[in-house]
């Protein structure tokens, strides 16, 4: 089992986090569907993502989407800082047998699980007078096994949310 070296870990995890953070908050701001970002979107994972929003456990990504929509129009999330660590360089949970070129995938860091912490601001409404709050959100991202198959589906995300912890502060 050829694990990625530390430099590879740092590079692959920062890259994964960067892509995830920019796409995920863009999806929030544009009211796009959120399901594709979660492990709930694939049958490969037998457990749903653990979503905790302001201290309330939210059952599904669709429920979280509804919570977001219920806030009303004009909520904007802006990331001001993020950081990431590798949790498990060779994540095995619910892993299929048929990972394409498994050794290479593992060495390049494609099957890591990572933790991503994000700090930023939420603006509730447009304009100068709109109230603003800080937020802090921590995710655990795990490999999307479907994207590691021989012919991955088009546009499949590389990493999916297994754990989400949001707090407006």
């Amino acid at each position: 089992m050829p694990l990625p070296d530390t430099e590879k870990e740092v590079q692959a995890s920062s890259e994964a986090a960067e892509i995830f953070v920019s796409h995920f908050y863009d999806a929030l701001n544009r009211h796009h569907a959120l399901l594709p970002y979660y492990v709930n979107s694939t049958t490969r994972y037998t457990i749903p993502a653990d979503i905790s929003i302001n201290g309330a456990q939210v059952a599904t990504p669709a429920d979280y989407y509804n919570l977001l929509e219920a806030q009303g129009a004009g909520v904007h999330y802006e990331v001001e800082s993020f950081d990431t660590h590798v949790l498990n360089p060779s994540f095995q949970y619910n892993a299929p047998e048929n990972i394409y070129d498994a050794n290479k995938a593992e060495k390049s860091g494609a099957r890591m699980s990572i933790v991503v912490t994000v700090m930023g601001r939420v603006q509730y409404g447009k304009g100068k007078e709109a109230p603003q709050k800080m937020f802090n959100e921590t995710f655990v991202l795990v490999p999307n096994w479907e994207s590691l198959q021989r012919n991955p589906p088009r546009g499949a995300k590389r990493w999916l949310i297994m754990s989400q912890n949001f707090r407006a502060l």
Partner: protein
Amino acid sequence: MAPRGSRSQASAGRETRSSALNSKSTSRGGIHKRRAGSTRIDTDGDLDMGTSATRRPRAGASADSKMSSTRPARGTNSRGVSRAAQTMIKHLNNGENSQLASRITGSANIRAAKSKPISSGPLVYLRVHGLKESKASKNPDGGRADLLAFLERKASAFTSGRQKRHVLIKKSHLVGDYFFIGTSKEDAEELLKVNTFVFAGSPLEIIESDDGLGHNGGKATESKDTQELRAKLQSILSQRYIGGNKLLKLDMLATDTELVSLGMFENRDRALKTFKGLMAICDGLFKTTKDKQDAIESISLANNNIDDVTQVESVATTFPQLKNLDMSGNQISNMQGLGRWKGKFRELETIYMAGNPIESTDPNYQANMLEWFPQLQSINGTQLRTPEQIAEQKAAMFPTPIRQNGPDFRDVNGIGENFLLEFFAAYDNDRHGLASRLYDESSQFSLSIDTTGVRDSKAPPPMPWASYIKTSRNLTKVGSPNARFQRLFKGTNLISELWKSLPFTKHPSIKENMSKYIMDCHPLPGLVDPSGQSSVGVDGLIVCVHGEFEECDQQTQRTGLRSFSRSFVLGPGRPGTVPIRVVSDMLSLRAYNPLPNVFAAANPQPTEQPNQQQAMVAELSKRTGMTAQYSEMCLTQVNWDFEKALAIFNEKKSQLPAEAFIAMPQ
């Protein structure tokens, strides 16, 4: 694929940052102010402080560097009486003659442009005295044209020794008893020789002006007449000010015998200028905006025959914080007539519009006014909305944040709770011990700072970032692979060493100050099994803590509060060592802001401990198969009586939707 990808990502991160900066800078509103300034330009093109700032780039385009370099400094001290005086002078003395002045200025500029080779370089300004005493002052233009011709002719005569040159006066401006002229350096030398010449029966005094064209309006150049006039207007104003009511009565100005006797309302133009002058004097009377605001809350402009507020626009710019305004008995006939006040008077609460034609011509005018003036409550003495309604309306304009709940602390065997109790005390007092106890060679730590976070503007300035900035791993800012590698601290030794260099901290006691923390945690599968037995990995815990600590910087000895969020991933320890280890520890720092009180928000009954409630929710969920959310809803309904909750569940079981139940693992 790697380096390229990572770099392009980094630049994308930078872009978002710079766009954030841009949006900030536009929201400052500096530009708006300018625009407001330029709309204040006099209708007849008079030169005054307000307008000269905008006119100058055009008028003085012929390299007027001296003026432009000295101007800003003057601008800053021209707020007070001097500005009022100067505006008064302009309005009262200059009158209709100003058109001539601007004509001369204009034509001189054209000439200057033609004779550019000679006249490059800054203008020199001279102050001429004696025009007022001369016979020419009886001329329709006050003798200016004659004096200009006289000066140019006489000065040109001095150049006859060499090749004869025509001396040009490029700018001129009459201020009080003095006539200011601007000219090139060579011509100024010739013009100074005309000093003591007799012009129309009056000896001239020509000296260099240290005050440009006299725009500064220092008292030195203010004529006696102006001073007297200003004093008179001030006394009129003070008679019209009712201190007890903080009311300035500017009603029926045209019938004020004193003002009329001063000739201030001879014609429409004069009346408009008088009004501006009065506003300028008002403005000059107060040292600070606060003084002004405290002294004058109400103004009456009743019965002034105003048909368009453009005529009295300066009330809005002079008293932006005005609370009450009486406009009754004027001639406003539609909303356009109020157009220049739109977006102004942001704090106006009461207005009287009775006796204006608009009452009959525009049935919707009151609704429009409520829209235009955000704090307006009452029109013509009828309260149309309360401050509470205004606040509600304002809140309704903004989205409603997702509600806060108490801690979502789904602990396993008290591991999370015990860890946190130990962690913060140890981090404050014995970081080295903590690092060697709970961290091992594969534990990771990094910190990231957000220096631009939201902050309460009333809070003290944020603690400096210097102690953290060199090790901050905020990946929106730290782009290079090497720096990202360097700022990730792995293993007890590196972590312990870094912690030693970070400022001292004092976290509130968790037991005594629970409300200063928000802690969420839940189990997490798939961590590395340190024993190497399970290839699928082992379960751990992810813990997210938000709170504050007191910081003391060893170098600066500065202490203060800082807000933090800290995310831990905890896993089982290596066999034979401690039971748990820190897999990952990420510290996020930002300026201090108190936390939202999630306990109050979550808990209508503060007597109940949230932990007990959580336990009840978990128990109910276990017994009924309902999700935690539904279990909590159920318990809240029956006031956290567990038996009742079970009863009500059995009663309504069949009516519950499928989503109320936890999906059974396949």
